[in-house]
């Protein structure tokens, strides 16, 4: 029983790390309908930039700030050079463009900042905490709290600020938003920038965990089943989806893995997501609406 509870809690906490990646994805999909495969590459780019600035001698917070500025600039470039010319194209084309973008960002990131693995110290220790007999990762716990803060911050941003309300307006109806004077290109830039900053935060967390190198980019593959479960358009869904995937994966690896020879994590999340699709085809928090793809 202790093993079960420990696995469950550990999985839930680890799941928030998936949620973080998925949130960046949801932001962009919601606001512009773009299935942004390059979220993982953005994560890599931001973490690499941060490490590079740290190596150049900046102290932690200034480096984070400078990286944010870089990511915002990058987002603006992406919007102008890639998305704007592709506005109103079908969603497949946009998805493909983000695949191309993934190569571009990965190539640029590693070409400019090097491909060796680097240590990223964000000041969090990966110690074990004990709650009774149950072992909990301090790192995961802090990250989960951080994710909660981020979600609250985003919720406030979206419900209280002018930009946030405009963002939601664009997500609801881009044409109507334009007709009342909202500049959707600017909104897209902002969304990408916010997603990139979320990417930076997830990049910091994942980078601290596994070192900063190319494999950060693969984290995106973990986010996709999260989205299926949570729905493509809901931040709450991304959180819940991440928790479910995290817990499901951990339990499966512990209880199901030994039966089939282990190593099932890459697909288990997808199969779990599939099962959810059968029950609710638009995800837990997604909305039914006619999709034309």
């Amino acid at each position, binding site marked *: 029983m202790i*093993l079960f509870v*420990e*696995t469950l809690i*550990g*999985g839930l906490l*680890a799941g928030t*790390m998936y949620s973080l990646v998925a949130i960046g994805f949801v932001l962009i999909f919601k606001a512009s309908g773009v299935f942004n495969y390059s979220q993982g590459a953005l994560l890599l780019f931001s973490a690499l930039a941060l490490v590079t600035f740290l190596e150049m001698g900046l102290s932690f917070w200034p480096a984070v700030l400078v990286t944010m500025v870089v990511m915002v600039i990058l987002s603006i470039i992406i919007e102008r050079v890639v998305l704007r010319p592709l506005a109103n194209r079908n969603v497949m084309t946009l998805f493909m463009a983000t695949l191309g973008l993934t190569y571009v960002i*990965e*190539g640029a990131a*590693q070409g400019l900042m*090097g*491909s*060796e*693995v*680097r*240590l*990223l*110290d964000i000041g969090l220790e*990966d*110690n*074990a905490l004990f709650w009774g007999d149950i*072992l909990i*990762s301090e*790192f*995961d716990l802090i990250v989960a709290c951080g994710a909660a803060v981020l979600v609250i911050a985003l919720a406030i941003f979206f419900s209280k600020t002018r930009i946030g309300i405009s963002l939601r307006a664009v997500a609801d109806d881009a044409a109507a938003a334009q007709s009342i004077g909202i500049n959707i290109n600017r909104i897209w830039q902002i969304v990408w920038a916010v997603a990139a900053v979320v990417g930076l935060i997830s990049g910091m967390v*994942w980078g601290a*965990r*596994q*070192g*900063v*190198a*190319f*494999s950060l980019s*693969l*984290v995106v593959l*973990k986010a996709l089943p999260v989205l299926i479960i949570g729905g493509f358009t809901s931040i709450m869904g991304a959180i819940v989806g991440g928790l479910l995937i995290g817990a499901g*994966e*951990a*339990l499966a*690896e*512990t209880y199901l*893995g*030994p039966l089939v*020879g*282990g*190593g*099932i*994590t*890459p697909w288990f999340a997808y199969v779990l997501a599939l099962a959810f699709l059968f029950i609710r085809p638009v995800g837990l928090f997604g909305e039914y609406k006619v999709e034309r793809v």
Partner: protein
Amino acid sequence: MSKHFTSIAAAVAIAASSIMSTGVALADGMTQYVPLFVYRTGPYASSGSLWFAGERDYFTYINEVEGGVNGVKFAIEEFETEYNPDRAVEAYERSKGGKDGSPTAFIMTHSTPATYALMDRAREDKIPLFDPAGGPSESKNGLVFPYVFPLLLTFYGQGSVAVNFIAEEFGGFENLKGKKIVTVYHDSGYGRASQPVMTKLAEKYGFIDVQIPVAHPGSEQTAIWRQVRAEKPDYVVLRTWGVMTPVGIKTAKRFGIDTTRMLGDVWAGSRADMIPAGDAAIGYNAIAPYPGGSDFDVHAKLKEHVIDKGLSNLENSDADFGAVFYNVGVVNAALAVEGMRIAMEKFGNRPLTGEEMLWGLENMTIDAARLEELGMTGLLQELKVTPQDHEGGGAARVQEWTGNGWNLVSDWIAVDDSVVDPLIEAKAAEYAAEQGITPRVVD
């Protein structure tokens, strides 16, 4: 719009025609063409870029300081494969015919999957494949696999060395009885490759062999290490690769597993694996057919003639000079150079063909005196390669991570051939039967 694409089409045509016409003018007849299959992008770039830098730096040293191998200089051409065997096949076909009049004498595959993909072609084309400390273990048998060279230490050998070292830690083989050794492995061919040996050794010494897989890329391993902890292991062996190693070490630490009782294999023991693990990695051990460190004599030479002259291929020579993967590259290049030197004794001082190189490699002996001359004492084991034995050495040292570098904690530990060789022979025979190969007969 269409103008743009006609120009692309034209470019395609030009490039295609120039690719077709390989082998143009003969430069001076005294360069040896070396195609280098690299992965400087993609998931394994972090190890690869150091590895290839080591190779290129050594070739640069030979070219610049020694004026080539007996006057034959190396002409290197890189082919990016992203660790993808399909792209290695493409690169192989592009480069197997040589260039500028020089034949291709050998190919360093730099990846076990690529070695597998190229094995049959290389046999056909008579080009030796270099895959030190990699490749199929059974290719140690050069009679069945004439053109594959898993030099230094096969995957099977790695398992054997690991157990020998662990026995030493416990104070002798007799103390292995009843102990539990958990191997956490990359769920791939590479990760599983040592399993047959571990099974055999477990029978022989009476320890319990537990194998736990981690799926690629392994960036989240909480569930894995919870399992490991539940096993209460006496020793943990890591057969991991890439990001899986630091995440594994960190997670292990969190679960209270003593990282000084962990032994990584060759590909889980480089600086790049330790740095992201931070303090958790202090005291971690790794098998090293190529130890890390820049205190070997050869490093002094490289430092003086390559690094300090700004000729190095390293992007960050302060941090990475002497890193394990850099040394892998240096050793691999040195082995190729030695093979060529020996072949030239028979065939003359000129660029060599693959077949000639094969003779050189199969007659390669590197003894203590030669190691001294090369400046590689302690970095490279003594080797004697024969047509029957393409491994040549079969030993490794063990190094311990101190937090900012590797500290060698053992001398060369030899493979237990009595366990490993029968396995290799059986596998090789199986392969020969499946492929309809008659093993060579060599006098």
